[in-house]
């Protein structure tokens, strides 16, 4: 009994410690992002990695999400005889919810996992120690370009996702199912207001920060993982955990932001 309590306490302490460490890490990284030096090249190559190379994934998921929204929305709205609302239904669900969330999840899968693995392997092979010994701050050198690139890329990817999704919905709703073309867009123009786009923007910015933070922090503190972060297995386990943790956190924050902003 006592042993069990001890174990629980131990685990709680460990989790608290990890949360604190990650929080401090976030603060340090944000400080690094704001302070000089400002170097373009590393940021560019990270935008290329996080943003530009995610574009095909985003185009595909965006188009199909929009198409399925068009399909589902059409059959639901037809029951009430209001197919004319299809445009606004597709646009609002994309802009407010699905765009930011699915983009964040795609980026977690594509770039987030890679960030955790990359930083984790750098930690394992003492490359991060090497940086510190060369008096190069790992936060400035490694994290800063990733943070800046994520904060720039993810909102842009979200915008692409939204637009592609709206046209995907148009393709199914208007071209295949015969909703009036004008009604699709007029309904959309009428019902979407700046506040909706603002909500999508705020969400994608917050998600960007969450994704890059969790992915890089888990990699950075790989050596402090309780079950041992060493070797290939340690890296793969930590990467999986980072992906799960980032995805769950994104969904939780999605609810929180919606609740606050609606």
């Amino acid at each position, binding site marked *: 009994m006592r042993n069990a309590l001890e174990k629980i306490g131990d685990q709680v302490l460990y989790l608290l410690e990890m949360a604190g460490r990650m929080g401090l890490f976030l603060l340090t990284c944000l400080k690094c992002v704001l302070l000089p030096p400002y170097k373009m090249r590393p940021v560019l190559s990270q935008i290329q990695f996080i943003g530009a190379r995610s574009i095909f994934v985003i185009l595909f998921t965006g188009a199909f999400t929009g198409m399925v929204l068009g399909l589902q929305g059409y059959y639901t709205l037809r029951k009430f005889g209001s197919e004319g609302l299809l445009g606004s239904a597709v646009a609002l669900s994309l802009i407010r919810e699905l765009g930011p969330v699915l983009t964040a999840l795609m980026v977690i899968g594509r770039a987030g996992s890679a960030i955790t693995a990359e930083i984790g392997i750098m930690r394992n092979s003492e490359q991060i120690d090497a940086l510190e010994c*060369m008096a*190069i701050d790992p936060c400035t050198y490694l994290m800063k370009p990733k943070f800046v690139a994520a904060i720039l890329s993810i909102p842009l990817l979200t915008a692409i996702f939204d637009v592609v999704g709206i046209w995907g919905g148009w393709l199914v709703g208007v071209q295949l199912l015969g909703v009036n073309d004008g009604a699709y867009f007029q309904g959309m123009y009428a019902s979407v207001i700046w506040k909706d786009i603002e909500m999508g923007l705020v969400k994608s910015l917050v998600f960007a920060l969450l994704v890059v933070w969790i992915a890089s922090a888990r990699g950075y503190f790989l050596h402090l993982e309780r079950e041992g972060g060493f070797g290939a297995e340690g890296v793969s386990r930590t990467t999986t955990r980072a992906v799960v943790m980032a995805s769950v956190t994104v969904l939780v924050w999605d609810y929180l932001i919606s609740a606050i902003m609606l």
Partner: protein
Amino acid sequence: MNGNTGKKTLPEVAIELQGVVKTFGRQRVLDGIDLKVMAGQTTVIVGASGQGKSVILKHMLGLVRPDEGRVLVFGQDLSTISRKELNEIRMNFGVLFQNAALFDSMTVFDNVALPLRERTRKSDAEIRSLVDEKLKLMDLFGSESKYPAQLSGGMRKRVGLARALVLDPKVVFFDEPTTGLDAHKSNEIYRLFYQTQQQLGYTAVIVSHDVPKIFKLSDHVALLAQGQIQGCMPPEQFQLSDNPLIREYVETTMGPIYSSEKEEPGLHETV
């Protein structure tokens, strides 16, 4: 030992550990380490693996903070100085990590040039000539555009050494410099180490268990056992030491034949 002597002999002592204690989880890895590293000389820390030799190095580098005790580098206590001051001190350090810790995404040239690019204001031409010089010194001329994955273990160590030396450091740390290399390649690393030390006159701290070869290069040998430093003395004395732990270590690593020549009757009972 005694903290005051460190200040008096400041010009000679490059790094000093005073009663350093470090616990990881429930394991007390370092249990009161006292060690002095003399400037301009080579200090070797030996010990069985898993004893925390690398942890001592990490303390000296300021990568790990001691739970108790102090780490003095050039007379400054690493745990009381600011991050900026720590980085100033680290500008005098060069480190050759166990697996060289090269950056996979960079070429050999970029790896060696990194400290210069990030920490100095030298022009590209100056950087190029400095890096070329160091690469030549390491017999690496011609492979500067290769990536670490394309290099053999020995070459990687040489690149690591070139990177460690590129800022002309005052102190160079070697974490198991020859682990994983065959005899021929380790000899090459030792030769390069000897050459560069003669040339640049740096203080060297080597963590190794390549006994007895490493003795030939060292001015002082310290054994880490049971979380403490068992004597820090010239290698000749070390091999003949009465300390039972040192005796045991020397015997197990060099073989009983070596030690049996100087064996005293009754020693085996004390071990």
